[in-house]
């Protein structure tokens, strides 16, 4: 008869794994890293003079946030929640208004065909040194949202599905119609503060 192998006592196994579990619960954090992705402009080489590029006034949407976190769009006081619609109107210029950016016609290939779009529009965000970070991000968020909504509308119109579900190539083609052009000026002191 073979020798009987004594069984390993596994009753403490549960305790050990509980210990491990609690250790991981304590050291890890649940929060996923999300954020508003932006791209900074490349630095200007020190030997190069800063030239003010001539931008046609109608192609420019100036968004200013002062030190009291008030928003001014094209010289008019505005609420943040109105900004998205205003930005969409500006980017789209559906009625070919003279005070909105110039429209260009370009063939984007099937299924878009010839599309009229505002190629040279620029949204310029200017903020004060004392502006709250949250207010700044609100504005950035609304502007990005305006682009996202336009791209999504375009995707639904031509492909009958949301923008986020399209493949990368198609997304890039839509991005060409609605290029994201948010420029940021150097922070200045715009008054309302020290």
């Amino acid at each position, binding site marked *: 008869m073979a020798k009987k192998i004594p069984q390993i006592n596994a009753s403490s196994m*549960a305790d050990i794994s509980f210990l491990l579990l609690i250790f991981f619960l304590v050291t*890890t954090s*649940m929060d996923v*890293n999300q*954020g508003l992705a*932006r791209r900074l402009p490349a630095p200007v080489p020190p030997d190069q003079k800063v030239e003010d590029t001539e931008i046609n006034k109608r192609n420019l949407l100036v968004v200013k946030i002062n030190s009291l976190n008030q928003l001014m769009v094209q010289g008019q006081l505005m609420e943040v929640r109105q900004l998205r619609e205003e930005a969409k109107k500006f980017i789209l210029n559906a009625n070919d208004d003279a005070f909105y950016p110039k429209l260009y016609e370009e063939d984007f290939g099937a299924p878009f065909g010839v599309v009229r779009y505002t190629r040279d529009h620029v949204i310029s965000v200017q903020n004060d040194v004392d502006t*709250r970070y949250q207010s700044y991000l609100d504005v950035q968020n609304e502007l990005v949202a305006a682009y996202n909504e336009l791209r999504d509308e375009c995707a639904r119109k031509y492909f009958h599905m949301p923008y986020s579900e399209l493949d990368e190539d198609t997304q890039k083609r839509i991005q060409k119609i609605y290029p994201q052009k948010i420029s940021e000026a*150097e*922070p200045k002191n715009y008054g309302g503060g020290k």
Partner: protein
Amino acid sequence: MPALNTSSLPDIIFMLLFFFMSVTSMKEVSYKVQFTNPQATELTKLEKKSLVRYIYVGTPTAEFRKQYGVETRIQLDDAFADKSEIGDYIINERSAMKESDQGLMTVSIKADKETRMGVIADIKQELRRAYALKISYAATQRTSF
């Protein structure tokens, strides 16, 4: 009364353990500044953890307040840093990466929502100078206004 058979208990706990290990992430560092993320809606997830570097901005936590005051401070890795150190930090971190990954580096700015934009603008200038152009403003999801 027969004893309850608990032999499968370790397996269950292990399952729980693996679940938590896979859905959570290790804390990157211990925070020396405290901050509440601002809120936004148009968020994108940061894809690869290994390509992301963090800059923390906020007021020092209670234990450091005596030494560092209550002014907004910048934290890189595990230590307080001056804004002039950001450039070197980014360049160091980037050169430690694989060459194919260097262009994909993302800098996540985790700043308190009450921070003054002056500080953020300084950081952005430093990042531009270090050619770390892909940035992400860390924020939490907000459903609507």
